[in-house]
């Protein structure tokens, strides 16, 4: 009987300890809320500086355009394939997304004439906020774009490629 009482006391202690952990964990404050907002618009810390550079680029772009040679061709499939392969080499889709046919993530990207990424944002912010798997997939896609910067694109055709939407589609990836 004594042994039993001791045992149940021990168990009670154990249970209390476990509850303690749980209660404390409930306190864990995720800062995701703030982060979600931020994720919608990831910019480099030197955003102002970049934008300033942008101004001069745009101006020189405009100048270029006025005396642009008419021989500039539309951006071609092989040039886009190069970008696609470059980004694919940086994309590590999360395990939960691999093979999924409804987890395509669109990332909106603004570029500088040298191909570097000045802005990259997740388009579907509603789904980002609501779904854990989509969030992991979107973060991985965002990392791929940022890691791939600068993108290998022909400077003379900058007017055609200053903005992209990259669709990261994991359905054909097995993991």
């Amino acid at each position, binding site marked *: 009987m004594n042994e039993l009482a001791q045992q149940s006391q021990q168990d009670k202690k154990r249970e209390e300890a476990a509850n303690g952990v749980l209660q404390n964990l409930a306190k864990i404050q995720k800062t995701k809320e703030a982060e979600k907002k931020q994720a919608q618009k990831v910019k480099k810390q030197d955003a102002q500086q970049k934008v300033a550079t942008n101004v001069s680029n745009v101006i020189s772009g405009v100048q270029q355009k006025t005396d642009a040679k008419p021989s500039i061709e539309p951006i071609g499939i092989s040039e886009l394939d190069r970008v696609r392969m470059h980004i694919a080499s940086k994309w590590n889709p999360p395990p939960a997304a691999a093979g999924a046919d409804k987890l395509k993530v669109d990332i909106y990207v603004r570029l500088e004439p040298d191909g570097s990424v000045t802005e990259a944002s997740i388009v579907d912010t509603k789904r980002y906020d609501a779904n854990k798997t989509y969030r992991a997939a979107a973060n991985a896609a965002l990392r791929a774009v940022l890691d791939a910067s600068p993108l290998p694109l022909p400077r003379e055709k900058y007017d055609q490629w*200053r903005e992209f939407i990259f669709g990261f589609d994991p359905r054909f990836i097995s993991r």
Partner: protein
Amino acid sequence: MIRHSLIMMMAWMGLALSMLLSVFLPAHAQTLRLDITSGQVAPIPIAIADFTGPDGVPTNVGRQIAQIISDDLISSGQFKSVDSAAFITPPDSPDIRPDFNDWVPLGVQGLLVGSAYIDDGGALQIEFVLWDVVAQRDITSGEGSTDENGLRRLSHQIADFVYEEFTGDSAYFDTQIVYVSESGPADRRIKRLAIMDQDGHNHRFLTSGNDLVLTPRFSPQAHEIAYVNYFNDEPNVYLLDVALGRTERVGSFPGMTFAPRFSPDGDALIMSLAEDGATDIFALDLKTQQLSQLTRSPSIDTSPSYSPDGSQIVFNSDRGGSQQLYVMSENGRGVQRISYGEGRYATPVWSPRGDIIAFTKIVRGEFFIGVMNKDGSGERLLARGYLVEGPTWAPNGRVLMYFKQEPREADGSGGEVALYRVDITGFNESRIITPADASDPAWSPLLR
């Protein structure tokens, strides 16, 4: 919080400027669309810094915590961690934004920084921040406190956070394993129920070893364990209350009962009942004690396992001449054979994700652990051995645990039995260290 508002402010300033600029942009500039359909499949590189004390120096508990988290993540096969010796500037506090220029060269995608120390009251205080090194922002953070006994558990929970943020899957580190611990010679084998964390720590025995025990299974809340206990050489299903250590026999039926498993809602037990040479599958309502017979055949129907929604049951039966897998509805109707490969099939277990079924397969004396789709298609074998048996799923359906026995040599050596786990990709097989031989593992649901 301060760091957030600063970054946000800078971002907003940039946005305002670019809106002004857009006026000057050439009118024909358009947004190109490009789909990326291939990528790299590789473990996610991550840096886990030793958790520090208030003085910024790693603490003993902080080193332990970092090690547990790192071991968890690496064991999943989805992460690789960078040796802390390679860190350019070891972080000294989770409250300080890291200089990402120190972390980008290491090629890591994530950086976990935390503090952990024992306060004056003897409580362990923990805080952590998980950083996305490439996007240069924090992904998640948290804080908590516990007594020192809670160190491992809290570490597993932090590892769960990291796992979920990077994989998009639910995690499984804060879980336990119940299994049968075996000792003694083959003819006088002592078998006891034992429970431990999924990484093998916090091991303890649940039964004395007086009676032979088999096939423990967790209830959906992990409070109870259903298992088979041989009392007076007769096997019957028992329930064990994990917290109180109390056991009781389930019902009192003619014949023997075995192969128990809980229904997904925990309200029923499904099991085999053998009487007069026939073994059929029954469901027992745990509240009303009402027993319903689900199969009626002169054959041996056993190892039943519910689908996660409770609507179907997979089991094995020799009704077709050899032991094969069958699926039926929860009320026993619409029995359909699903296994058609070479050999015999046993111990089917429905994945918590619902899409696939794990099993043991025996072909020409060789044993395999495999998975197949719930209609029997797409069979894949993940592990093989002299004897491998009894798969059990991690609660996220990404990892299987099972037991493996080595052949016994003529001189009586060998024959060790141990627990192993493997990814559902068939990679990353690893042994779980236990104090003695181990068989019949069952993985708990996520405890939190």
